[in-house]
């Protein structure tokens, strides 16, 4: 089957060129531009028009590249004409607002027009039902042919949705004042690099816009910056993570003095709602990947089911509650440095263990749970798993005098089965090629297991963040610096 491309035709002439298009069949011309939320709403609803008669043609008051973006964001496939200044066609046809729909009969005479969004009107002209969500009518905005431009019908929270500045939840509008406050004197044009998959440039201005959108306070920005730098490291593979069918979310773990300085939660409810820095820092990182990087769900982001992790997650490690060295120290930083570690992972699997009395038993329980993540028989995996140990579980290991490394090795050793028992369903070539009784572990190496401590004092629930498969992604740790 041949794929269709999105074709955008520049409109060189004025209204006569449009009338000439309606040679043998009626045309519905819909005038729109990118800065009008009502236009965006109309174009989205027109996806349902299909191949109705009259033929639908979009006349974008935009240069061709922007016209293409307008159509891609709306998900609408229809012929589109790109009209640039001085917008002769709009002027000659008296189009003063967008969206305006003009119905031309065969021969090019105007039969009727609709100004603004009018669902019943569009349904009548197209002869098809249109989606019932949203308002029945909504005023539009000034067309670009009109001076001065008017911003009619503005409803700011809704405008953010229509502009696509969102992950599906309401956002804080990124006004220049809010973005300046977030930047706190930093150079707005400095770039952290290009964000895959669309290679959008992560200027500090855009990253700050994402942080504002997410609801961050300006003091959180250093953590957001460090997290963005970390995911842009090539070995993180933000491209693969952004476009895969896997659930693949990103976890950001903060260590060091930044935890207290930013008010991050490492205790009760650390993986859930309630803490503004936890939720907004994780969200800001995700918005950079989705909006600046173009990994938009339903667009370039093809995650089959995704997971709540793809909305964003950030938590702090409960370092004071751990008998061991913290995650960032294990990964080469000094305890007094602040750091963020980013990791690509599946949504957390909760592991209850209220009965194990010995470290060995507990390690075994965690190993069996971890062994089932990604897919129960897909062993071994050369990919990282994060295990978040709650304080009560940590106490069990500490009471036995176990080091972190001993915990890691015990979990690795316990997640071990003979190859023959793994030959079901999604199983690896290694398992099929091995001798029946060859011991196979969940991971290729104990070093694939990352361990950290978090959670409330009461309750024996730890969590396993399962791996992404074959993404070639590695956890990355970056220092959080406070200088601008």
């Amino acid at each position, binding site marked *: *089957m*041949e*794929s*269709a*491309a*999105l*074709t*955008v035709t520049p409109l060189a002439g004025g209204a006569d060129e449009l009338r000439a298009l309606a040679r043998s069949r009626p045309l519905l011309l819909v005038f729109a531009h990118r800065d009008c939320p009502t236009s965006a709403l109309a174009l989205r609803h027109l996806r349902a028009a299909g191949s109705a008669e009259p033929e639908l043609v979009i006349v974008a008051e935009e240069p061709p590249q922007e016209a*293409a973006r307008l159509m*891609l964001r709306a998900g609408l496939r229809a012929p589109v004409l790109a009209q640039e200044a001085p917008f002769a066609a709009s002027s000659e046809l008296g189009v003063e607002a967008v969206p305006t729909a003009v119905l031309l009969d065969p021969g090019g005479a105007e039969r009727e027009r609709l100004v603004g969004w009018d669902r019943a009107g569009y349904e009548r002209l197209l002869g098809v039902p249109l989606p019932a969500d949203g308002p029945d009518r909504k005023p539009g905005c000034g067309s670009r042919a009109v001076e001065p431009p008017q911003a009619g019908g503005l409803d700011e929270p809704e405008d953010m949705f229509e502009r696509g500045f969102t992950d599906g939840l309401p956002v804080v509008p990124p006004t220049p004042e809010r973005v300046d406050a977030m930047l706190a004197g930093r150079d707005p044009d400095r770039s952290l690099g290009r964000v895959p*998959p*669309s*290679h959008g440039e992560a200027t500090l201005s855009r990253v700050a816009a994402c942080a504002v959108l997410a609801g961050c306070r300006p003091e959180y920005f250093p953590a957001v910056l460090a997290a963005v730098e970390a995911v842009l490291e090539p070995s993180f593979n933000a*491209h*693969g993570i*952004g*476009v895969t069918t896997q659930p693949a979310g990103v976890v950001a773990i903060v260590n060091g003095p930044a935890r207290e300085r930013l008010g991050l939660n490492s205790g009760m409810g650390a993986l859930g709602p309630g803490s503004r820095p936890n939720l907004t820092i994780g969200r800001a990182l995700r918005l950079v990947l989705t909006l600046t990087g*173009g990994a938009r769900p339903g*667009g*370039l982001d*093809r995650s089959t089911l995704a997971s709540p992790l793809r909305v964003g997650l950030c938590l702090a490690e409960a370092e004071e509650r751990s008998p061991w060295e913290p995650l960032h120290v294990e990964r080469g930083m000094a305890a007094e440095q602040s750091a963020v570690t980013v990791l690509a992972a599946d949504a957390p699997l909760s592991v209850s263990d209220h009965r194990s009395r010995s470290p060995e038993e507990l390690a075994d329980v965690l190993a069996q749970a971890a062994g089932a993540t990604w897919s129960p028989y897909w062993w071994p995996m050369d990919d990282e798993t994060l295990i978040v140990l709650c304080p009560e579980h940590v106490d069990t290991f500490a009471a036995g005098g176990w080091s972190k490394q001993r915990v890691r090795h015990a979990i690795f050793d316990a997640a071990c089965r003979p190859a023959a028992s793994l030959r079901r369903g999604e199983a690896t070539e290694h398992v099929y090629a091995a001798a029946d009784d060859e011991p196979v572990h969940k991971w290729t190496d104990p070093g694939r297991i990352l361990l950290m401590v978090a959670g409330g004092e009461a309750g024996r629930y730890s969590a396993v963040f399962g791996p992404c498969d074959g993404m070639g992604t590695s956890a990355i740790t970056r220092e959080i610096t406070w200088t601008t």
Partner: protein
Amino acid sequence: MSCSVHDAVRLERRGIPTAVVGTEPFLDEAIEQAAVLGMPQLRIVTVSHPVQLLTAEQVQQLADGAIAEIERRLTSGA
């Protein structure tokens, strides 16, 4: 699919006509990815989805069904 479109755009810019073959559900992604990389006229060849559980013979049939389109993508006269 996205990574393959990136490869195709680079190859086309190097003067190598490239036919990317992918399964149908990824068509929208391919169109968007090609557009954001500045090559909206890049076409991909689609085959039916899924492929993972097909028999060997069925995989061959997919190729048989796609070869004419592959040839059209790579040549001007075919």
